[in-house]
């Protein structure tokens, strides 16, 4: 277990029954959300413990906070829990910072119920409206394949991956049929110039964690966090293509949903015409959001 996860669980054990504490909560559209949720009736606190990777790359922590601020209600307080010997940059984006060993102050904060300082309702609603459009488009393209894969996994009949030779042969045939040109990397080139600079690729047999990096990149392109306030920049969606699509462990569509929340449409790479028509409609709808 990672150190941050362990610390979150230790903190969770230190509260009495009047506080609902959840370590590593699994939220429906966050792949990497807060480490802890603490709730008393009518007040929710999302708490973050800095992970090892985040201490050297602070933008990862900011991405996590940004996604959580957009996903959770505006009345939620976002607090940072620091280790005693750690120095953390960019704490100004959080509503409050506590030492992880100082559980008493965190407990008092919960019962004091301060009103979070940020006022970004307009941006949050913009993010949610974009999310519902992107998710709708992604489901049109990917849902049936993801559910088939999930069902196959559940039944323990993992489909054997075809041998390299035959897979590349099939891909070549598919590319020929669809009229796409093959790029130097062996991927079918995305001919629709409008999407070429917005396309990312999934690795073979992708895990939800593989989606996270692209979702973070896409989210940071769309929204910015400054002094705890969220701002919208560019709402144009990105495309995340793959031969295999990621499947959630419990919630089959979670990777697709979480990617959509970040602004990425996950799509199988072998349906270019359908993808083009869905993306065209999506672009038009998202374009109308800010008018």
């Amino acid at each position, binding site marked *: 277990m990672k150190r941050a996860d362990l610390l979150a669980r230790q903190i969770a054990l230190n509260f009495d029954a009047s506080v*609902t*504490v*959840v*370590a*590593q*909560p*699994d*939220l*429906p*559209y966050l792949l990497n959300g807060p480490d802890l*949720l*603490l*709730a*008393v*009736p*009518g*007040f*929710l*606190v999302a708490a973050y413990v800095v992970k090892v990777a985040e201490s050297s790359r602070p933008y990862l922590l900011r991405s996590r906070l940004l996604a959580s601020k957009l*996903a*959770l*209600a*505006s*009345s*939620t307080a976002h607090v940072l829990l620091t280790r005693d010997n750690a120095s953390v940059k960019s704490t100004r984006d959080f509503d409050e910072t506590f030492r992880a060993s100082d559980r008493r102050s965190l407990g008092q904060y919960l019962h004091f119920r301060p009103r979070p300082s940020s006022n970004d*309702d*307009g941006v*949050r*609603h913009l993010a*949610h*409206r974009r999310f*519902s*459009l992107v*998710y*709708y488009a992604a489901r049109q393209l990917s849902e049936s394949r993801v*559910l088939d894969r*999930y*069902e196959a996994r*559940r039944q323990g009949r993992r489909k054997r991956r075809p041998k390299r030779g035959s897979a590349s042969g099939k891909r070549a045939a598919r590319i020929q049929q669809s009229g796409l040109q093959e790029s130097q990397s062996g991927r079918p080139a995305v001919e629709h110039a409008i999407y070429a600079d917005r396309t990312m690729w999934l690795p073979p047999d992708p895990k939800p964690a593989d989606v996270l990096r692209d979702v973070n990149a896409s989210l940071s392109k769309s929204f910015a966090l400054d002094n705890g306030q969220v701002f919208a920049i560019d709402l144009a969606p990105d495309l995340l293509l793959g031969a295999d699509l990621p499947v*959630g*462990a*419990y*919630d*089959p*569509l*979670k990777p697709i*949903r979480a990617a959509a929340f970040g602004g990425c449409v996950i799509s199988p790479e072998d349906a270019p015409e359908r993808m083009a028509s869905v993306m065209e409609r999506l672009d038009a709808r998202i374009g109308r959001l800010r008018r």
Partner: protein
Amino acid sequence: MSVHSRRVAAIQALVVGSPALSAPGLIPRIVAEFREVGLCRAVHSRNRRRVLQILHSTRALDSALKGFAAHHACTARPPSLGGYLRAFCRPVPGVTGQLSSADYLTFRQRIVDRRNHYMHEAGAFPATDTEVMTLLSDMHHCLTTVLAL
């Protein structure tokens, strides 16, 4: 803790922490319904287990949306899952956001219609556990979205 337990616990925390679900006794009732979903996994009969999981989850969702609407003095006609979702598409007093038409369409097709089919038609059962998982996850998605309005 399994992913399922972490999901249900997270939804419970959202429910407890929501200022809009402060009616006396409402939170324990909703939380108890979500717990029942997990307990249903011990039911041996497959069809019974699947229908019970949907039943408890939809009761939690129904009650949460009803509590949210009551807190904001929002009238839904009819007072049903579909009615509440339609009502949340219009401006609600004291709520800064509203559901988009894409949200409404998604939740209508994926939750309301499927839920009604299994709850009201004799002999209708989800064919696979995947179908149940998808429906329950959609309900979690719906509740998270409404509580974040």
